[in-house]
């Protein structure tokens, strides 16, 4: 975990380091200082841009460990402070989306597996296939057209109010739950095909009992992993959705920073997303090994 984190921070630093464009120039022009060779040199000296790469990286790395992500090139505010509130709002958006998609996908997959190839299963497969082929931004634009222009039910701009959250959450949740549904369904079906299920059927247990008692337990571990991995997609998707609905989250902040060429904020955004994503995956790994102790023994045997 620690070497991985050093790697993450190194790559994030490298990303901005190799970017064409000069941070000192950017900072001066946003402060309205006249650009001349002397002022540029002075700013470079002050920002430490003349030092060797590895020294700059080390300095940056240790300040990150102290929770200092540098200052924004645009307004000089600390990035950590600038990013904190939007990050919280993105987390709210992501967790709501996750809750909605898990509920939808789980219920749908459960009912589909209960009557495999039945009417409900077929309908759900078609619906999930459709939403699987629709990118989040297409869904959101269509939802916007439907609910903001045709029926004036929801606001176009989402400022964090409960009503404004509906469309962003739906735009993220519909494609995600379609993917969840397909994966959950196949995980549950794989569990159904195992021998113990036919044995339980022979003993006369009801399908519903077998599903809730055994199959869900068997499929739980892979499902947790799927959810953990989807968190990355969710963070990427929320950049798009936040931009569309002007939701003041970290994705919107990052897109604004990209168009302002505010490198340090972009750097902070990538670092925070990677950190959250790795922590989520570490968490799912731990939950997985609790749910399915075989993983642990496998690793020991290897």
């Amino acid at each position: 975990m620690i070497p991985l984190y050093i790697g993450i921070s190194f790559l994030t630093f490298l990303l901005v380091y190799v970017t064409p464009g000069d941070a000192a120039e950017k900072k001066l022009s946003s402060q309205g200082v006249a650009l001349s060779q002397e002022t540029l040199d002075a700013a470079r000296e002050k920002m430490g841009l003349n030092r060797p790469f590895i020294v700059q990286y080390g300095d940056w790395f240790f300040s990150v460990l102290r929770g200092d992500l540098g200052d924004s090139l645009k307004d000089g505010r600390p990035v950590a402070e600038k990013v904190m509130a939007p990050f919280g709002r993105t987390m709210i958006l992501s967790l709501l989306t996750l809750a909605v998609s898990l509920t939808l996908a789980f219920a749908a997959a459960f009912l589909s597996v209960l009557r495999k190839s039945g009417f409900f299963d077929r309908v759900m497969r078609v619906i999930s296939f459709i939403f699987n082929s629709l990118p989040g931004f297409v869904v959101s634009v269509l939802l916007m057209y439907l609910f903001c222009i045709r029926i004036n039910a929801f606001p176009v701009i989402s400022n964090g109010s409960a009503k404004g959250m509906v469309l962003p959450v739906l735009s993220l949740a519909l494609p995600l739950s379609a993917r969840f549904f397909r994966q959950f369904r196949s995980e549950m079906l794989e569990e159904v095909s195992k021998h113990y299920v036919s044995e339980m059927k022979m003993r006369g247990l009801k399908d519903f009992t077998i599903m809730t008692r055994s199959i869900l337990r068997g499929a739980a571990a892979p499902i947790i992993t799927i959810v953990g991995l989807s968190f990355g997609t969710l963070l990427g998707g929320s950049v798009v959705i936040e931009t569309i609905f002007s939701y003041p989250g970290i994705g919107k902040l990052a897109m604004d920073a990209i168009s302002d060429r505010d490198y340090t904020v972009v750097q902070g955004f990538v670092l925070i997303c990677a950190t959250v994503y790795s922590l989520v995956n570490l968490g799912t790994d731990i939950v997985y090994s609790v749910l399915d102790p075989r993983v642990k023994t496998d690793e020991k045997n290897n």
Partner: protein
Amino acid sequence: MTVNKRSKQNKAVNKSRKKILMTRLYVLIVLAVILLIIAGIGAFVTPNDPYKINAIMMKKAPSSEFIFGTDSYGRCVCSRVLAGAGMTIYGALFLVISTATVGTVLGTICGYYGGVVDTVIMRITDLMLAFPQMVLAIAVAGLAGGGLWNAILALGISGWTLYCRLVRSRVMSIKHESYILAARLSGCSDLKIIVSYILPMIVGSVVVNAVTQIGTSIIWIAGLSFLGIGVRAPQAEWGSMINEARGAMQLAPWAVIAPCAAIFITVTVFNCMGDTVRDIAD
């Protein structure tokens, strides 16, 4: 007796199922080829000039001259959808083919030789997987300043890891087979063993994975263009068309719906193909 009968029945069921899947695959391949042809020649057979700004014909509803209407600059939406098809579809194909190739080569080296190279490359894939792919792509494409090549590069940076890991594990399980040992004993060089005896065994699973990635890649490239950090603005591209037109969605919904439909149809065809190929491989 009964067991025998049942396995025969199963075989028959599997055979007919495979036949249905193969028919479906042929139909989808034909559809995909049609899409590829449209994307290839689309830019040259547009009914109107896709870049001609026409102040009199702004936001006009679909008509016989402008089949999908015009956008807020008076440009023909149908022509722009056709002209933009190549960017998205061939961009995605290029992304898939290049990441699959790079991943396969690196994965083979890792799996076959092992050692330090393997460790280093595997640590790099671990590192790439620690970043959410789209987040990294947005940052890279955004900082690099947009453009189709930067978008492809940004998505490719982490895209190859999928194939690398897959190929590595397949090569590792194959290289201890007795026929590989026999080839080595009879004096084949490593290159000969890899090219003639190992690659043919793994190319199938690489292709299956690559085909399932085409639809997703189209979504990614269109998504980056939608954000304004993929294909640059005047150039017609589906994602950027949706982004340009969504401001005037109230007055000219066709300018949004046409590229949305184009993305949906294309991704559906390629996703269907991916699913079918995977079902056949199973």
